[in-house]
């Protein structure tokens, strides 16, 4: 009886040592597996990442001469996907027509002088400010530059903002 017990404890000893080795191997396998999974995910994501096309919507548009746009006018640019707004005080804004709520194309409603989204009824003022929710923020802007009396709009990156502010507006200097 006692002999047997002794034997079994002797047998146990190497097993215990094995156990720590096994633990180590388990962790090693786990780490290797996670690494492989991570690599696979990375390759997959890089492969599926959006392919950007240069030169289309996203380039710089020459909208026209400053005097072509009377104060208080809104001129749509189809391919540029923006409205060139000239405020009553002569300042310019290029407003991205994509609704900040859920992405619908926002038409200009001349009767009310507002941008009114058909999808869920958001309304925006001429400077893009939200007049009626559910839109969470004003319409996005594209940077406007005025060179040699010509109005240029860069559709590369829409500017998001929490509130419309006078500093958004571009003025023709001296004119």
């Amino acid at each position, binding site marked *: 009886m006692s002999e047997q017990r002794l034997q079994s404890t002797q047998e146990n000893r190497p097993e215990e040592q094995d156990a720590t080795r096994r633990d180590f191997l388990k962790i090693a396998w786990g780490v290797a597996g996670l690494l492989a999974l991570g690599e696979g995910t990375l390759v997959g994501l890089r492969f599926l990442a*959006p392919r950007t096309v240069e030169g289309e919507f996203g380039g710089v548009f020459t909208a026209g001469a400053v005097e072509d746009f009377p104060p208080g006018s809104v001129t749509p640019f189809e391919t540029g996907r923006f409205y060139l707004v000239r405020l009553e005080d002569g300042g310019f804004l290029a407003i991205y027509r994509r609704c900040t709520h859920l992405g619908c194309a926002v038409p200009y409603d001349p009767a009310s002088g507002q941008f009114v989204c*058909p999808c869920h009824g958001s309304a925006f003022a001429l400077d893009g400010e939200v007049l009626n929710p559910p839109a*969470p923020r004003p319409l996005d802007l594209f940077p406007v530059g005025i060179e040699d009396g010509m109005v240029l709009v860069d559709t590369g990156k829409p500017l998001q903002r929490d509130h419309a502010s006078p500093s958004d507006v571009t003025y023709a200097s001296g004119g």
Partner: protein
Amino acid sequence: MRQEITQTREPLLRRMWRSMQRDPLPPRDDRGRMRLVMNSLVLHLHPSKVAKPTLRFTYTFGLGGLSLLLGGVLGVTGVLLLFAYTPSPEAAYNSMLTLQTRVWYGQLIRNLHHWSANLLLVVVVLHMLRVFFTGGFRTPREFNWLLGIALLLLVVAANFTGYLLPWDQLAYWAITVGTSLLSYIPLAGEVISRLLLGGPEVGAATLTNFYALHIAVIPLLMAGIASFHLWRVRKDTLTVPRRADEPPPERVEKVTTIPHLISREVVFALVMLALLIGWSALVNAPLEEAANPSHSPNPAKAAWYFLGLQELLLHFHPFFAAIVIPGLGLTALAVLPYLESDMDVAGVWFRSKRGRWLAAFSTLIGVAAAVGLVLLDEFVLDLPALLPFLPTIISNGWVPFAALLLAIIGYGEFLKLLGARACEVRQALFVLLFAGFITLTAIGIFFRGPGMALVLPRGVLS
């Protein structure tokens, strides 16, 4: 017997036909019938014998089987459509026109695919309700419920990705609205939506992505998970139905799958197929004008199954409407079977007599509350205006959400005070929320007009 066969020298074709089955056809006795089921590749999805009470049509309503049938119709018609469809923004819409006007039976095949897809969504949800109300998800079937939820989500994803393919106005704007919901997910939202769209707006890359998802990724996943689901039904067997006032039966009478189950399945499948083809011959799938990215139609609605969500968006800050509420709802749905430990109501419709009353009552409350709250928010309450000092995510998000949550918890506690058991309360809350969601969906489909204003359905007034 065998000797007789070899002696009579059967004709070649007959021998080939016989050789398809490992067992003699037709089987001559019950043992032969059971063996046939066991040894057949297709039939062995079924056990060789089934509990007789589970055959009652008004127990399963054949809804799981009908899902499978619709899946089959979708597979066949989908492959046919592949031969007529070109997945590019320039060609997609025209290929739909050609399909409908110049291809023999093109319109019929498109209709079958369209109606089966929409019906599948309805049928899968009804199947889920059947399983829920009969307590068919109790141990050991919890995981099969999860597989079911995965299938439900895949059916929605298949419908959603397929929606874009015709590239008409309906498709373009429904997908624009649907994918914009994603950008409200904190941090990761913008990245995910760009990945799915392949750019900042719905365009050529979006169509490529959706096409690949719709014809390869989603169907393969669905086939795999559906096989798993059916295998679990086979292994776990169906929950045996019983009445509320009966104890669980000691022994259940079993009958052979052939002919008792098979004949019912075949008859039901043929009747449903006939109805489906008849409907598709008469009612055309919609196709509007070609997609025009600079003109959103008014009102621009998502696909009908997302109109409940779109209705929520009119009332809550998007983070709550698109992320928090659906996320919590799905999580609750997924953990439902793990909350139930009460086995003695498995197989009983609506848990008990009282459960049935509470469920009916909660349905009414759910419908009434949804209608009432929509009207209240539309005409009376303007939280952002009342609380102008708070950002809208709080005034139009946390505040109404917390109020709603408290009301729901209060309703549950109220039922408990009335003496309802935990499983009956859970059922009542499920019904309350489900009825509310269906009501919102119905409002979105029928009562939202131009500018998403509340209107009466066309034809009611004029």
